[in-house]
């Protein structure tokens, strides 16, 4: 692997790992406050999966010469994170959290699916390992989306409103990297544009079943910037809370 290629892969790993860590932390904020016990446990368990997946990717970064996973996760400032803004938004009501879960997890599953065939073997290995977890996460998201989108007027309106709110942020997940062409040419990753097309094709049938409408494409206005460290005011307090113990005592055993 040459020098440029390593930078390109690091950038890809950082954005994926940061997405997972931040959404994992956000979703874990529901622990103990979920709508019913069974869902609380399921959502928390998936949040843990996400943090585990983030850790696996931070480990790959560590193997490429970056700092230890814990150091990377807990000592950076908000503007050093590469997550899409979608995942840092506050949880809001459960409708918004479920909609975000649906939009993010479909993209995440497709991203890992594509990477299972990546020319960068360590990443391909991780991608193959998390396949089952992602399958369940997406199944969970689809079930809730279809159920609440079509249950009654209140649930439908709530899901549609949450969807409209999340949509442009969701499009922001596909912000292109400056290494895009190189990653595609070297067979590391298929690229954000292809990913977004697949994502749209995958979510559409479930949205039809749920009776949820995608905003007209003329009004699409992707919220970019997250990948290069531009974030909403919501990320900083999250990072502070998440890293409180580590900053207080970096040697603390968990």
């Amino acid at each position, binding site marked *: 692997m040459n020098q440029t290629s390593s930078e390109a892969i690091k950038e890809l790993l950082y954005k994926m790992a940061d997405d997972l860590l931040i959404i994992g932390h956000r979703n874990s*904020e*529901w*622990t*103990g*406050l979920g709508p*019913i*016990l*069974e*869902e609380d*446990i*399921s959502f928390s*368990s*998936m949040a843990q999966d996400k943090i585990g997946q983030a850790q696996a990717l931070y480990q790959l970064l560590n193997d490429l010469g970056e700092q230890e996973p814990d150091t990377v996760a807990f000592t950076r400032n908000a503007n050093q994170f590469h997550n899409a803004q979608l995942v840092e938004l506050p949880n809001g009501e459960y409708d918004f959290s479920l909609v975000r879960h649906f939009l993010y997890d479909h993209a995440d599953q497709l991203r890992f699916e594509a990477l299972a065939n990546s020319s960068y073997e360590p990443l391909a290995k991780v991608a193959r390992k998390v396949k089952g977890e992602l399958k*369940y996460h997406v*199944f*969970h998201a689809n*079930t809730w989306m279809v*159920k609440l989108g079509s249950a009654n007027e209140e649930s439908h309106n709530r899901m549609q409103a949450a969807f409209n709110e999340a949509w442009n942020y969701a499009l922001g997940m596909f912000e292109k990297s400056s290494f895009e062409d190189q990653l595609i040419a070297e067979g590391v990753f298929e690229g954000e544009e292809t990913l977004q097309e697949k994502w749209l094709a995958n979510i559409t049938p479930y949205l039809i079943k749920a009776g949820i409408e995608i905003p007209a494409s003329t009004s699409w206005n992707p919220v970019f910037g997250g990948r290069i460290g531009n974030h909403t005011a919501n990320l900083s307090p999250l990072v502070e*809370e998440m890293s409180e113990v580590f900053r207080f005592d970096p040697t603390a055993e968990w």
Partner: protein
Amino acid sequence: MIKSLDPRVTRAQIEENNTITPLKDLDQWETYEVFHQKKRGDQHMHVGIVHAPNAEMAFLFGKEQYGRRGFSVNIWVVKTRDVFASEYDDSDIFDTVPEKQYREAGGYKVMEKINKYKKGV
């Protein structure tokens, strides 16, 4: 608003004098019995109960409640009300007398016969 050491509680902005109204019976989801299978070919074993509005959700919850430690290959969910159960008052129907041991598999000394046969071969 309740201020708590747990930031999530503070964030939820719960009123101090918040009175909780319990759900009426009909507002609760019904229960499903969850069975899991440890490996293909094994019998499904009962592992617990989940509340769910339909079978698909029951599976969704059953998987995480009882399968998340990674010991299942398959899960069944069955509506609790579809299970026909005996009455505890009738539990004496299972009583048996010691003289009937010949009806139980343990009553046969099969291994002796098997060993004898093996030696013969």
